[in-house]
């Protein structure tokens, strides 16, 4: 594998890592709040001293269990305190954290565990323990499974490899008694090229690949994004609150939760689950909020539903002010996110009547920086948030470059672009293919146990091939057309980027999924999945009875509704880019069924295979 970084001078001063940052913070401000997690109905607080104490105990336990530098430790859990304790402890003992998506089915978990060769698995509960036990024979290197929630495991399973979290802490405490300072000694040996985590790509095509990020990569990202204020302005601080709800094994959530927390002291609040995000948002009222397009779309759809069922006066007032917000949004888009005196005045009045309350209800009253990333999003959705006063920024990055590539900066927003390259980031667009290439110290060390794939994306001179096709806008901002391999070439020879159309469709509150097909066909068609909540509510208001998702999808009235949306979207596109026919998906797409990746991205090829008859139906002559 090609390592592009020049070997750094071996510092005599100890290497700064996220662990030393947490340790220093625990010494400087032991009593301040590092994180909160809702437990038995109240937000249990963890101070920096508690945090560091737990990290040390887990780290000692890992030493006692024989974790050597470079050993992999897997974490299969929802976001919670123990995730962070473990992640930091692993970095402290120079191990490698492997995050598994909580939704990973057993087969995928088996692949990730065996491919990474994890020695220890931290499994959240019985569900994850069961997955691991089911595939143990395929993971010979797995020596121990630590379960965090004893319910359903303790006293029922007698596999000798099982250890409870409380036992792990006891092991750690005992080890610390005997070997005081062992963790600190191990930490002192940390080098900047130590790999600290494997971030498995979601694998829309083929099996997931493990992206190796080093201490140096993460420190670079922290210096640029956190301390340098690469996203937020002013940079994040201890006074900021964040809500952690997206999978921590994804690089974006890891950055916004673990790195923002360790480097800037941002207080992390763990959502109870993805279903309770809206309620938790209201409680926590974070100041920094990162979301994937699906979340932003869903919140917007929720506003629509609740507005429809509001009393007439409220509906009229809110509709009026949302109309105003739309115009404010237009102006902000033009100015790059800076208010003009007129919009500021308008917003001020609207704040009294609508925006303050609306943002409070959405849990975004105090958001000073909101970001969307990890997938393309329709500009209309972003504009909605900008209009109601949520400072929304689209950002771009990927696991392979430690999430460092481009971002819209406050006041210099260009809607529809992913922003400007961060300071010091080299970014160019390949003249031939249009592919976006980046080069900076955050570029990953390679794919785990896959030098061929590494060579495919990493030039000898350090350029990372992102696989995204893009173009410059006004010479400063980057617009992403689509993933390279998703580009559709119709029978007429026209290159079409499906994601733009798909996002335009998904911007409608009634549609959840849209997959445009038409590669080597004479026209474009789309597989469309409706949003059960909104369409269900729509049907209910019309007195349209339905039983299941499938039943609702097959209603002629629903088809008409979707047809209307498709027609509306088609008007915005050139004739050859228009969707001529569409089919409604008979089921909600699911990770378990292999239709979505763990990050809820559609697996295009799988969809086209699974719903082949639907696709063929759309190309049969009428």
């Amino acid at each position, binding site marked *: 594998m090609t390592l592009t970084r020049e070997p750094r001078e071996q510092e005599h001063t100890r290497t700064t890592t996220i662990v030393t940052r947490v340790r220093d913070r625990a010494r400087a401000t*032991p009593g301040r*709040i590092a994180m*909160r*997690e809702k*437990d*038995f*109905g*109240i*937000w*249990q*607080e*963890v*101070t920096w*001293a*508690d945090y560091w*104490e*737990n990290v040390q*105990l887990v780290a000692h336990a890992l030493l006692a269990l024989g974790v050597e530098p470079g050993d992999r430790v897997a974490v299969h859990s929802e976001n*919670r*305190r*123990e995730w962070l*304790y473990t992640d930091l402890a692993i970095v402290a003992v120079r191990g490698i954290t492997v995050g598994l998506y909580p939704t990973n089915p057993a087969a995928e978990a088996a692949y990730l565990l065996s491919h990474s060769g994890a020695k220890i698995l931290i499994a959240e509960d019985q569900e994850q323990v069961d997955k691991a036990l089911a595939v143990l024979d395929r993971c010979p290197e797995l020596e121990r499974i630590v379960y*965090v*929630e*004893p*319910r359903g495991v303790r006293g029922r399973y007698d596999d000798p490899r099982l250890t*409870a*979290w*409380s036992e792990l*802490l*006891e092991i750690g*405490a005992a080890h610390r008694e005997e070997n005081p300072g062992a963790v600190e000694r191990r930490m002192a040996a940390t080098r900047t090229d130590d790999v600290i985590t494997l971030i498995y790509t979601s694998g829309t095509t083929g099996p997931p690949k493990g992206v190796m990020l080093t201490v140096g990569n993460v420190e670079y990202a922290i210096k640029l994004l956190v301390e340098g204020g690469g996203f937020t302005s002013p940079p994040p601080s201890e006074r900021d*609150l964040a809500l952690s709800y997206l999978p921590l094994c994804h690089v974006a959530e890891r950055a916004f939760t673990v790195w923002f927390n360790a480097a800037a002291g941002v*207080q992390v609040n763990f959502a109870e689950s993805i279903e309770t995000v809206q309620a938790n948002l*209201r*409680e*926590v*009222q974070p100041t920094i909020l990162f979301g994937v397009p699906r979340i932003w779309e869903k919140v917007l759809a929720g506003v629509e539903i*609740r*507005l429809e*069922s*509001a*009393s007439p006066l*409220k509906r009229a*007032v*809110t509709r009026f*002010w949302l109309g105003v917000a739309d115009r404010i949004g237009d102006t902000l888009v033009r100015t790059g996110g800076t208010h003009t005196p007129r919009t500021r005045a308008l917003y001020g009045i609207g704040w009294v009547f*609508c925006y303050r*309350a*609306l943002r409070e*209800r959405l849990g975004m009253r*105090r958001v000073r920086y909101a970001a969307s990333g990890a997938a393309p999003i329709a500009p209309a959705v972003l504009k909605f948030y900008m209009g109601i006063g949520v400072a929304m920024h689209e950002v771009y990055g990927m696991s392979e470059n430690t999430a460092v590539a481009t971002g819209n900066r406050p006041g210099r927003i260009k809607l529809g672009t992913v922003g400007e390259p961060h300071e010091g980031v080299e970014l160019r667009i390949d003249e031939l293919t249009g592919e976006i290439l980046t080069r900076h110290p955050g570029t990953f060390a390679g794919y785990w146990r896959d030098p061929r794939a590494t060579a495919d994306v990493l030039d000898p001179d350090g350029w990372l091939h992102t696989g995204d096709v893009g173009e410059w806008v006004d010479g400063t901002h980057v617009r992403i057309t689509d993933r390279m391999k998703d580009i559709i070439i119709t029978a007429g020879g026209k290159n079409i980027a499906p994601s733009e159309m798909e996002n335009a469709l998904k911007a409608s509150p009634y549609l959840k999924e849209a997959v445009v097909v038409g590669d080597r066909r004479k026209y474009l068609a789309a597989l469309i999945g409706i949003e059960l909540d909104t369409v269900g509510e729509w049907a209910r208001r019309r007195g349209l009875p339905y039983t299941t998702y499938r039943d609702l999808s097959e209603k002629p009235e629903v088809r008409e509704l979707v047809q209307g949306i498709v027609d509306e979207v088609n008007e915005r596109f050139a004739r050859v880019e228009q969707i001529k026919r569409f089919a409604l998906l008979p089921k909600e797409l699911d990770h378990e069924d292999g239709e979505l990746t763990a990050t809820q991205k559609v697996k295009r090829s799988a969809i086209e295979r699974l719903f082949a008859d639907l696709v063929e139906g759309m190309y049969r002559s009428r």
Partner: protein
Amino acid sequence: MTERTERVEPPEQAGAPGRVETAGRGRAPAAGPDAHPGGGPGAVRARRPKGRPLLYTAYSQDMALLDTRAKKVWLALLLGAAILLSGLPDDLLVLLAAGYIAAIGAIGLNIVTGYAGQVSLGHAFFVAIGAYTAAAVSGDPGGRTLGFGITSMLVWLPAAGAVAALAGVLVAPLAARLRGLYLAIVTLGLVFLGEHVFKEWDHLTGGPGVGRPAATPELFGFRFDADSALGTRAQSLYMLMLVLLVVFAVAARNLARSRIGRAFSAVRDRDIAAEVIGVPLTRYKTLAFAISSFYAGCAGALMYTITGFFDPGSFNLLMSVQFIAMVLIGGVATVSGSIAGALFITLLPRLTQELPALLPFVSADTTQTPNVFQIQVALYGLLIVLFLVFEPRGLFGIWIRVRAYWKSWPFSY
């Protein structure tokens, strides 16, 4: 009481496995003294981040008496207004003072009927017991009726409450055996029993049509029922009743958010389910009657200090119905509703007296029809019917609705 109720208790269902689990969830059992993430007694301070009223970091915040800033502001405003009201003319002050006393009684009825769900029509009986106990304790030993000559409020007020509470405890076994309508009828029987006893027991009550002097409101030598350097008689009584109402209301609110209050609600919502989760029914029903009767007794003791004289015929079914009306119109299972309902019912006669001036066909003369007294009686009935049909949660419910309308802005839920 506040100290007691603010104790952080784990939820009822958190048995041993739950505790182990929390220990597993990030609490280091072998950690040093500073390792008290969240739940530990050392870490629970009200240090939640600013401007996030829904972010509870300790149970004490969740259960706080005044958990939102709005409540604090409203309470301060209302108290300020109540104190400013002492500048009103004396006849209105006396009326308001009577309303405050009625509110104490209504809170008492709300504890047993609203919070604990035990319908009681016998409230007048307990009020009577309190009134007579207080009158007897503070009465003139040489007088026509029974009296012990201890005029200090510090003695006769608790005594009135205690004797009434004792009566409540004696009645409670009925409540433990009966439910709903049957309990209502049985407590109704108490009123008739009481009425008869009080009419016949001349030595205590003075007999029907004659009556006896009420308790003397005296505290450390200060007479509230006489003009003094601090203000007129009406002003002294008004302030006394206001202070007492605040004390009783705060105590009731604290009770409602304590373990006892939660047990009451559980009993009310489904007594069998409550028993299954470990709420001792008999004990809590007895407690509900005892506390409710204590309030009624105190209210009874104070009620006649204003007029100074009372007749055994006052403690009839109408009085019970008036208390029920206060609770229903004010709001079931709310303290502030009880106060609002009591003031409303007490001020209603005064309002209807103004009717002849507004509506010429209404007469102030009892010999003519329609007259204000007929309208008054009809209004009680009409209001109860209207409230039960249109707003079963009473005046407080209307407030809740108004509040919810604005709180849910810009949506409807």
